């Protein structure tokens, strides 16, 4: 997750290392690279998603006991179930695979989310996600983190816009006293056909709200992405991202493959 990337950068030893060795600036994270839309899953359904992210060019060295990111493959299993027409809860299992370390469990997160019901007739979709979780110190010095993620989106004709101005806070770890950090993300895409959409996703971490980090130490990533809308039951997204600052992994490829399962009674009267 991106908050771990930010958390590591905010840690003092890491910053020292970054100052001395800019090529080490890339930190770990990138377990779930996704700009959220405001929709929530309907009740009696489960979305199973696999996020696969491979860092082609990232941090090459171990920094403060944290493994390098280059050639790390992150597989994240996300399970989300709808609670009712306006809320859902998600659960994540993060893993990392790398030469010399094998497949490692990294941590877990829990993410409840609520939305403004469509029937309220708001001009934009709005929801609010809260994410609480743990990750092992080998992958993030800040082990317990909390994220508040407002989500605003809008579809206009063939265009889709989404903004996630997320706030992240460390609950346990070196950055516990830094307060909330600002980690926005955004997406703009265009429907070329009913099935194929393409666009740009932007991810950033500006550092603590009270005192933004220098640009050198900020996270700035841009992905060229494609979405395949083959069925309401499937979610397929893939992209290639580049890091624009020294503190960001420089080249990442990502893929999200999701399948929705419905259960319960399926009588037409239901």
């Amino acid at each position, binding site marked *: 997750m991106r908050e771990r990337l930010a958390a590591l950068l905010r840690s003092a030893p890491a910053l020292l290392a970054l100052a001395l060795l800019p090529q080490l600036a890339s930190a770990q994270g990138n377990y779930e690279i996704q700009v959220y839309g405001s929709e929530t899953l309907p009740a009696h359904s489960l979305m199973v998603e696999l996020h696969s992210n491979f860092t082609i060019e990232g941090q090459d060295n171990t920094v403060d006991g944290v493994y390098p990111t280059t050639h790390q493959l992150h597989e994240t299993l996300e399970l989300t179930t709808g609670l009712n027409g306006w809320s859902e809860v998600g659960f994540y299992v993060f893993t990392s695979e790398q030469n010399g370390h094998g497949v490692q469990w990294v941590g877990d997160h829990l993410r409840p989310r609520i939305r403004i019901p469509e029937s309220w007739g708001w001009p934009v979709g709005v929801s609010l996600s809260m994410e609480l979780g743990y990750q092992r110190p080998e992958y993030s010095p800040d082990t317990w983190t909390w994220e508040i993620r407002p989500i605003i989106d*809008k579809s206009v004709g063939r*265009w889709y816009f989404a903004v996630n101005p997320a706030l992240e806070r460390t609950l346990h770890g070196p950055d516990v006293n830094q307060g909330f950090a600002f980690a926005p993300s955004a997406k703009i895409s265009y429907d070329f056909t009913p099935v194929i*959409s393409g666009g740009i996703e932007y991810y950033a971490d500006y550092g603590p709200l009270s005192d933004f980090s220098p640009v050198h130490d900020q996270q700035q990533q841009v992905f060229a992405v494609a979405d395949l809308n083959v069925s309401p039951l499937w979610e397929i997204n893939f992209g290639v991202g580049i890091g624009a600052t020294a503190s960001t992994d420089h080249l990442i490829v990502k893929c999200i493959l999701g399948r929705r399962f419905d259960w319960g009674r399926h009588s037409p009267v*239901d």
Partner: protein
Amino acid sequence: MLSRRTLLKLSSAAALSSSLSALAEDLAAPDLRLDIAAVTLALSPRHKLRTTAYNGQAPGPLLRLREGQPVTIEVANHTDHAEVVHWHGLFLPPAVDGALEEGTPAIAPGASARYTFTPAPAGLRWYHTHAMAMGDLSRGLYSGQHGLLMIEPRNNPGRYDRELFLALEDWSGYLSASEDGAMNPSYAVSTINGKTLGSGEPLRVKQGERALLHVVNTSPTDVHWIALAGHELQVIALDGNPVPSPRRVPMLRIAPAERVCAIVEMNNPGIWILGEVRKHLQAAGLGIVVEYADQHGAPRWLQPTDLVWNYEQFATAPVQEPPPSGATIVVPLVIESKFRGHGAMESWLINGRSYPDTTAEPLREGLRYRLQFINKSHDDHPLHLHRHSFELRSLGRSLDGSGSASAPYIAGIIKDVVLVDAHTQAEVEFIADHPGATLFHCHQQSHMDMGFMLLFHYA
């Protein structure tokens, strides 16, 4: 021989007489009056809605007209946008049918218009705005401009003790992403006769009565399934026209603009719910309490487990041989949609074109036509032909191999709206016996707005 002076005098007198006659006609009070104006409706104690309606109520007043007896209805438009009233299911000239596309004049904001016509045919009709909404989900059929219209027959053959008029309505529309990948209207509240279930007065009946239900689906876009718990409904008419084979059914399926008349034997005393069979729509309010005299307690609902309906059961016995087609002109109408983005409603095409670019060969008076609806889209469409009735001939022939590749020919069901399922073909026949511009369209407001209309002309 007339002198020039005498001729002038006579001409002046004639002109004066004509003018006075016209003036007298103008001054004569109309038989009925409708006022179109903004109103706040209390759909329930929790739901208040600002909309536009007739005479301050939704549904508008029940109009009872006598078949063949001319009537003048004055309509005053107190809104800030042009309006027009369509008299749905009547055989009227284009000038008063109530469709701008046919040539009915719009009623300008603040203006009034008079619709003078001779009501026909007899049966349950309705009236509603025929203005476009064009994405504004407070205009057109999304508003409260609808009402029931009963054309009384010269001789009423029905045997019933009580008539109950019911308008099914959907309110507070909003666009949401649907599973076909486009935006479609959904509704926050649904009602019967302007009230959510339990909010209005119950329908009061007595044991042993035969109640005649007249049900109209006024929804802008949605089909509804209606049942009366504890009772069967004997369907006697569709779209106001008697069916050849009345049948008892557990529920009614009513597409937008369709009407069903059904007799209910009130032989199961209690307090019952008449409402939407689908749970989420009944929960949204689409229901009404039916209360027997001297009965008390909470309303009861018996949940059906399936949706059951077909038109064919009300037809005459299936016609084994295809009807003669030599004298019938077949008009294929291929229905397709066009993707405009996941954030937009689809546009609609008839034979590859959207209104106003849709075209058809001119109709010739007196000939019989077979409209062949080839629905290649993912949606079911309630298709409506203005100013005429048609006879259902075949329904449900699968176009994509998922269902039956053939459909029996049927006869005897006369309607003006037919629901054509997605990926199927249906056929109806009508005789071109009402010359003048004739509008054909899908009765989903969103589909009309997005081009699903075709104007037939007579040669």
